[in-house]
C-alpha cells in the first residue's frame, strides 16, 4: 500500500481564481492511500518545495501528487525535489489543474469539481507507480549546424571555440547566406562584407569546423546525444581537394548566359562559377543545368584550362554518414515571390524591384558595380518610391499575417543611403506603421526623415502603372486624406520574408515542430527560445522567426551555449519511461518493430523451459532502453499485450480512466 501526499498549488490566482484549492486539498484527504494533503500559494517556489520535502520525510510518503500547472512546466522541478529527499522521481505525478482546468473554466464550482477529478485520477495512477531508473548513454561530442548563413557561422564558431568539433552543412556552394548579399547594415551602416567575410574565413580556418558546402541533410536517425545524420554531398564536378579557386575556368567557360542567383538574376554568370570573390570555400562549381559538356558531352573547356586538374565530369552525388550529439537548425529565410502582388507590376517592369535586389544594385560587387542604375535602361533614377509591407501583415492566402520585422529598418537605410549618395534623388517611403523597436533604431529612422529629407507618407500604394519609361505610382496619403500620383523612375518593394523552403522537409526529418508559417517552434517562447521541443535540436536565426542581424547573432550564440552545455556532458540520462516486452507473452510477430520510429526493438531467439521440462526456442522482442523514446506506438500495436510502457502501463491508464468515471 502506498503512502501518498497531495500538494495543491494556487499558482497565485491562476488556479485559485477559478478552483477552490482548499476544497481540493480537503477532498483528497479522503482518497484511498492519501496520508497527507495540503495547499500552498506557489508550490514551485523554494518554500513550496520544502513543504513537499518535509512531508515526504515526516509522513514517510511513497508517492506524491502535485496539483499544479502542466507537467511540461514543472514536472522536472518536483521530481528533483522528491529525489533530493530520497523518493524515486517517478513516484511523482502531476495533476494539471491549470492549463487543463482553471484557465479554461470561468465558474468556480465547475473548476473545483474538475480539479478534484484530475487529482483523484493522479492518485489512482500513483498507486500503481513503481520506482524507475534511467540508464545512461555516452554523448557524441560533435555538433551539426544546418545552414551556413551568419546564424550558422556564429553558432559554429562559438561551439568550436569551446573545443568541440562542429560541421556546417550548406546547400549552396559557399557559406555566407543572405548577409553576403547585403551592402550595409543598420543602424551603424557597417559594410556587411567587412564584418561577415572575416567570420567566414575564421570558420574555414578553425580546425574544429568542417564545412560541407553544396550539401544537404538527407536523413536523420537517433536521438539527443546520439544522432546519426546522412549528408548528401551534391556533385559539383570539381575536386574540392584540387581546386585552388584561381577562377580561370569561370572566365573561360563559353556558357555565359546563366542567370546569376547571387545578384538575383540581374546579371549573368558562367556555367562553372564561384558565387562571389570572397566565397568560402573558394571552389568552383559546375551548374549541371547549363553545362554544355554535361548535357551534350561536347565542350570540356574548363577541364582544359584547369592547371590543377580539378575538373571531374564523372563526379556523382555522394552520401556520408556522421554522428552528432546535437543539431542546430539555421536554415534562414527568403523574400516571398511577388507573382501574387502584380498590382505593383513586379513582373511587368524591370524597374520594380525587391529590396534585396536594391541591395545588389547598391553593392560595389553587384551587377552595376555599386552605381544605382535602373535595370531597364541603366539610367540613374531621380525619383524612387519604396513600398513597405508587401505581403507582410496580409491575412490572405497569398500573404503572411506576421510583420517581417526587418523591412522598416532596411528601407530607412536604403532611403538614407540613396539621399546621401545621390542628393538629386527624391525618395518616398509609403508606410502603414514605422516599427523601429531596437537600440538606436528610431533615431536612425528619424535621421532619414530629418537630416536626409526622405518623404515618409502614411498610406499604401494601390497600384503601379508602367507607362513609357516612368512608373506611375497611385497611392494614398492618409494624413492629408488625398490620393497621390507619383511618376517614379524606380519602385522598391519590401517583400515579406518567409522560412527557406528546405525547412519543412528538414523539420519532418528532425521531428521538430513548426508553426503554420513554417517557422520552427521554440520549446518555450520566453524561457527556452533557442531550443526546439525535440531534445537535442536547437534553433538559430530566422528559421525561428523574422530577425535582424544583431538578433540573429545573439540567438546564434545562445544556441551555441545550449549545445556546449549538452556536449560537455559525458553521458546523457535516458528516458526512464521506456517500453518493455514481457517475453512470456511475446509471440514474435514483429509488429512492434515495424511501427517503432527509432529502431529501438530487435528480436532474439531465447530458450524457454516448458511445463513438461523440455525446452523450446522462441523469437521474442527486446527493447533497447537507450534508444526507446517512450512514444508508446509499440504498446498499442502489440496484439498479445506483451509490450507495455514503464510509467504509462496499460494498468495505470485504466486506473486513471476508472478514477475519472467513478
Amino acid at each position, binding site marked *: 500500500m502506498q503512502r501518498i501526499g497531495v500538494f495543491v498549488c494556487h499558482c497565485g490566482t491562476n488556479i485559485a481564481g477559478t478552483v477552490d484549492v482548499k476544497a481540493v486539498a480537503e477532498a483528497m484527504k479522503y482518497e484511498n492511500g492519501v496520508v497527507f494533503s495540503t495547499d500552498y500559494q506557489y508550490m514551485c517556489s523554494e518554500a513550496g518545495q520544502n513543504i513537499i520535502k518535509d512531508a515526504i520525510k515526516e509522513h514517510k510518503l511513497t508517492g506524491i501528487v502535485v496539483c499544479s500547472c502542466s507537467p511540461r512546466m514543472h514536472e522536472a522541478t518536483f521530481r528533483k525535489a522528491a529525489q533530493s529527499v530520497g523518493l524515486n522521481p517517478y513516484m511523482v505525478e502531476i495533476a494539471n489543474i491549470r492549463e487543463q482546468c482553471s484557465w479554461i473554466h470561468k465558474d468556480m464550482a465547475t473548476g473545483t469539481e474538475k480539479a478534484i477529478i484530475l487529482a483523484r485520477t493522479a492518485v489512482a495512477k500513483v498507486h500503481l507507480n513503481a520506482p524507475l531508473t534511467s540508464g545512461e548513454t555516452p554523448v557524441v561530442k560533435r555538433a551539426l549546424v544546418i545552414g551556413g548563413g551568419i546564424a550558422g557561422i556564429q553558432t559554429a564558431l562559438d561551439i568550436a571555440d569551446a573545443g568541440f568539433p562542429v560541421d556546417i552543412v550548406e546547400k549552396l556552394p559557399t557559406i555566407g547566406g543572405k548577409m553576403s548579399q547585403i551592402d550595409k547594415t543598420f543602424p551603424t551602416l557597417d559594410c556587411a562584407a567587412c564584418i561577415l567575410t572575416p567570420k567566414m574565413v575564421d570558420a574555414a580556418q578553425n580546425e574544429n569546423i568542417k564545412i560541407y558546402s553544396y550539401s544537404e541533410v538527407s536523413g536523420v536517425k537517433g536521438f539527443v546525444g546520439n544522432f546519426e545524420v546522412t549528408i548528401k554531398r551534391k556533385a559539383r564536378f570539381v575536386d574540392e581537394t584540387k581546386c585552388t579557386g584561381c577562377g580561370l575556368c569561370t572566365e573561360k567557360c563559353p556558357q555565359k548566359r546563366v542567370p546569376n542567383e547571387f545578384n538575383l538574376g540581374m546579371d549573368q554568370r558562367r556555367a562553372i562559377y564561384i558565387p562571389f570573390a570572397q566565397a568560402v570555400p573558394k571552389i568552383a562549381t559546375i551548374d549541371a543545368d547549363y553545362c554544355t559538356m554535361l548535357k551534350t558531352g561536347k565542350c570540356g573547356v574548363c577541364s582544359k584550362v584547369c592547371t590543377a586538374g580539378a575538373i571531374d565530369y564523372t563526379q556523382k552525388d555522394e552520401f556520408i554518414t556522421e554522428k552528432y550529439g546535437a543539431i542546430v537548425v539555421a536554415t534562414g529565410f527568403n523574400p516571398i515571390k511577388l507573382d501574387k502582388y502584380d498590382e505593383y507590376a513586379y513582373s511587368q517592369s524591370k524597374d520594380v524591384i525587391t529590396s534585396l535586389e536594391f541591395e545588389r544594385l547598391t553593392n560595389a560587387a553587384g551587377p552595376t558595380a555599386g552605381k544605382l542604375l535602373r535595370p531597364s535602361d541603366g539610367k540613374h533614377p531621380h525619383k524612387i518610391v519604396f513600398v513597405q509591407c508587401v505581403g507582410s*501583415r496580409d491575412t490572405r492566402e497569398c500573404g503572411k499575417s506576421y510583420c517581417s520585422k526587418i523591412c522598416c529598418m532596411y528601407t530607412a537605410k536604403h532611403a538614407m543611403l540613396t539621399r546621401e549618395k545621390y542628393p538629386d534623388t527624391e525618395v518616398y517611403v509609403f508606410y*502603414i506603421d514605422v516599427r523601429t523597436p531596437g537600440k538606436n533604431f528610431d533615431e536612425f529612422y528619424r535621421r532619414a526623415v530629418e537630416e536626409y529629407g526622405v518623404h515618409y507618407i502614411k*498610406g499604401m500604394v*494601390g*497600384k503601379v502603372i508602367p507607362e513609357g519609361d516612368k512608373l506611375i505610382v497611385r497611392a*494614398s496619403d*492618409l494624413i492629408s486624406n488625398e490620393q497621390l500620383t507619383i511618376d517614379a523612375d524606380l519602385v522598391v518593394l519590401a517583400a515579406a520574408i518567409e522560412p527557406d523552403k528546405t525547412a519543412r522537409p528538414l523539420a519532418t526529418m528532425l521531428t521538430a515542430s513548426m508553426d503554420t508559417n513554417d517557422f520552427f517552434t521554440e520549446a518555450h517562447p520566453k524561457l527556452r527560445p533557442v531550443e526546439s521541443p525535440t531534445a537535442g535540436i536547437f534553433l538559430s536565426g530566422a528559421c525561428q522567426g523574422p530577425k535582424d542581424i544583431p538578433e540573429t547573432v545573439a540567438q546564434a550564440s545562445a544556441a551555441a551555449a545550449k549545445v556546449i552545455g549538452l556536449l560537455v556532458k559525458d553521458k546523457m540520462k535516458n528516458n526512464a519511461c521506456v517500453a518493455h516486452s514481457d517475453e512470456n507473452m511475446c509471440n514474435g510477430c514483429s509488429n512492434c518493430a515495424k511501427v517503432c520510429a527509432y529502431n529501438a526493438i530487435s528480436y532474439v531467439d531465447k530458450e524457454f523451459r516448458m511445463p513438461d521440462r523440455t525446452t523450446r526456442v522462441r523469437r521474442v522482442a527486446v527493447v533497447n532502453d537507450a534508444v526507446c523514446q517512450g512514444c508508446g506506438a509499440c504498446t498499442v500495436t502489440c496484439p498479445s499485450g506483451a509490450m507495455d510502457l514503464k510509467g504509462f502501463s496499460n494498468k495505470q491508464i485504466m486506473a486513471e480512466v476508472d478514477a475519472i468515471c467513478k
Partner: protein
Amino acid sequence: MSFSNNLKENVIRSAGVDPKKCMKCGKCTATCPNGNEMEYKPHQFVYMVEKGDIEPLMNTDSIYKCLSCFACVERCPRGVEPAKFIEAVRVAKIRKQGENHLKADMIPDLLDEDLPQQAIVTAFRKYSK
C-alpha cells in the same frame, strides 16, 4: 445613440465583413479609381462604420461613386473589402422610403441610343429600391 448603434450593426451585418480587421493602410483608397471624386474615401467608410459614425456616410454622394470595380475588394490585405461597406451604407439609404437616388422619370434624359441595358439595370440596382 441607440439608433445609431443599431444602424451600425445593420450596416456591418449587411456588409458581411469585419471593420475591426482593418489595419488602416489605405490601400483601398490608393487603388480606388474613383477616390478623387469621393467626399468620404473607401478607408473612411471602414473607419466611420467601425466608429458608428454612419449618418454622414448616408448623406454623402460618395455612396453613389463606387463603381463596383472590386479593386479594393481584390487588393485589401486584410480581407476587409471596403466596397462592401459602401454598398451596405448605400443599401441602408435607398431602402428608406423616398430615398431613391434615381427615379424612373429621370431616365429618358440620360439615355442615348447606344447605351446598353446593362448600364440602366445596374444604375437602378445601385441607385434605387
